[in-house]
């Protein structure tokens, strides 16, 4: 393990307590809602916030006893915090200079890194003259210039527009792949996390609620937050063979489970009927329409009832069914479309 940490930070109204292990070359994404403690965790790793307890070990050596400027850590801040009075080159050269390199040496390192992120042409530009994407790449180069063993990125893509974001995301992906230290990335965009990370850690309210490979987390969300993030309906119930009891409903699933279990299904997998259908779908319940909104090319219907659910239908279906909020309706999901797993 490159990084092995237990981070405990106590604040008046908030406690962070998470354990974190990152292998060399691995990229771990911390995902979570606003105020979950993601930034606090990064700051604790960087030495900008004191630990109330726990430890941080990097390559086997304790890190939490050292001040921020003596940790082999590179950090990319949410809004980059490029020094406004220095050129892009001098921003990148700042770290090597602080770590003892001569001026010309530091500049050489900086120029090489700017070259690598494709910004050699902007070396002399001041940060205010850089676009968001360019600034992000300079910030990355600046963090990498100190040859860190641990790279920390706080919402590196949040300040970019959707267009730039796509490009910068793949660029970042490439740079992270080249980096052989541990990387911890904070984001609240699931797509960023999926694309960039080898492993997701979902933090809610200062504690880890789920972790695993991106695809695994996406397929088997364990909290409402994660389910919404990946666009699934999720319920927690009690398994009893091929049925999972959720409140007054019992979902039929193909998996055989006993004890506490989750059942998840996609909003597109739900079918709606004006009258009680008489067909194969095993999971059928009556619901009330809570709201209707456009969702991409489709329409998303919010259902209330024994369980709350999202349903995606086509505009044509909407017109056929003539749905309005407040209306009672039947909803069904085929057992084969559900996915159940132990809670």
């Amino acid at each position, binding site marked *: 393990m490159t990084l092995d940490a237990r981070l405990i930070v106590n604040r008046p109204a908030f406690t962070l307590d998470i354990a974190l292990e990152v292998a060399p070359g691995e990229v771990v994404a911390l995902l979570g809602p606003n105020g979950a403690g993601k930034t606090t965790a990064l700051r604790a790793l*960087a*030495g*900008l916030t004191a630990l109330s307890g726990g430890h941080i070990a990097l390559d086997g050596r304790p890190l939490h006893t050292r*001040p*921020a*400027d*003596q*940790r082999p*850590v*590179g*950090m990319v*801040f949410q809004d980059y*915090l490029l*020094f*406004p*009075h220095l050129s892009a080159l001098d921003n990148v050269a*700042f*770290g090597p200079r*602080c*770590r003892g390199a001569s001026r010309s040496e530091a500049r050489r390192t900086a120029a090489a890194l700017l070259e690598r992120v494709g910004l050699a042409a902007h070396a002399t530009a001041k940060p205010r003259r850089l676009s968001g994407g360019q600034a992000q790449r300079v910030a990355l180069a*600046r*963090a990498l*210039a*100190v040859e860190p063993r641990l790279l920390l990125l706080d919402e590196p893509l949040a300040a970019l527009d959707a267009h730039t974001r796509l490009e910068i995301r793949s660029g970042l992906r490439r740079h992270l792949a080249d980096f052989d230290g541990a990387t911890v990335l904070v984001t609240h965009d699931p797509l960023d996390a999926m694309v960039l990370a080898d492993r997701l850690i979902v933090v809610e309210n200062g504690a880890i609620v789920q972790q695993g490979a991106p695809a695994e987390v996406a397929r088997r969300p364990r909290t409402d937050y994660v389910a919404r993030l990946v666009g699934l309906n999720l319920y927690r119930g009690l398994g009893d063979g091929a049925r999972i009891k959720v409140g007054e409903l019992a979902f039929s699933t193909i998996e055989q489970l006993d004890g506490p279990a989750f059942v998840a299904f996609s909003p597109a997998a739900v079918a709606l009927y004006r009258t009680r259908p008489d067909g194969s779908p095993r999971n059928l319940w009556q619901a009330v329409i809570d709201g209707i909104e456009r969702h991409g090319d489709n329409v998303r219907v919010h259902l209330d009832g024994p369980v709350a659910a999202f349903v995606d239908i086509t505009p044509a279906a909407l017109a056929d069914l003539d749905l309005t909020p407040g209306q009672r309706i039947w909803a069904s999901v085929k057992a084969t479309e559900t996915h159940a797993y132990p809670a």
Partner: protein
Amino acid sequence: MSAAPDRRLAGRPPWVLVVPALLGLAFLVLPLAGLLIRAPWPTLPARLAEPQVLEALRLSLVTATIATAVCLVLGVPLAWMLARVDLPGRRLVRALVTVPLVLPPVVGGVALLLVLGRRGLIGQWLESAFGVTLPFTTAGVVVAEAFVAMPFLVISVEGALRAADRRYEEAAATLGASRWTVFRRVTLPLVAPGVMAGAVLCWARALGEFGATITFAGNFPGTTRTMPLAVYLALETEPEAAIVLSLVLLAVSVIILAGLRDRWVTSP
């Protein structure tokens, strides 16, 4: 990022603000008009040509500038300590910094004599160890001016430091910068406008300093007689001459400040 609002569309400034503002301006500027009216214009050129005037003016500008430099060297670190280091009793220290502001300048001068004079706590030792005496020297003028003017610098710079975005300093720390490097290469460039504004206040105050200077450094043409001292003495015998000297001092400082201030105040 935020676009500069366009003032043409912003509506006329309201009278309830404009009237007191103009009153305030008049209050500050009218006395100057009084001086201008009373100034002995016909004899003005002759009076200005007197070598002592130029001498006093030069001395004033030189000492005020050196005093400002001294205040910068000592005051900026002090402001930094107040803003960035968790001192016990910081509130008391900050209140003590304002002491020279409240102390009547003449008493300030006496206090300086008690400490830095020939028989003073430290002055004694300065003289025996280094043969340095401050009273009656140009260096003494600088000391007196710096004493009186430093609080303005410290308070302005502390305000600027508190208003500055600390996260740049954190970013520098993660890049391996020690606190000194952070201060030198990040903090200072970022608060430069605030430091400049403080230096302007400090310089203006030093330029007008009278009581502490005459008490601590005395009054001798060429070495310690600055413009305010010349003005005061002229007032004893020839009020017109005093007015001329004051106007010269004001004109020079207004020209210098008008030439410099906007750049400092408007840079973010």
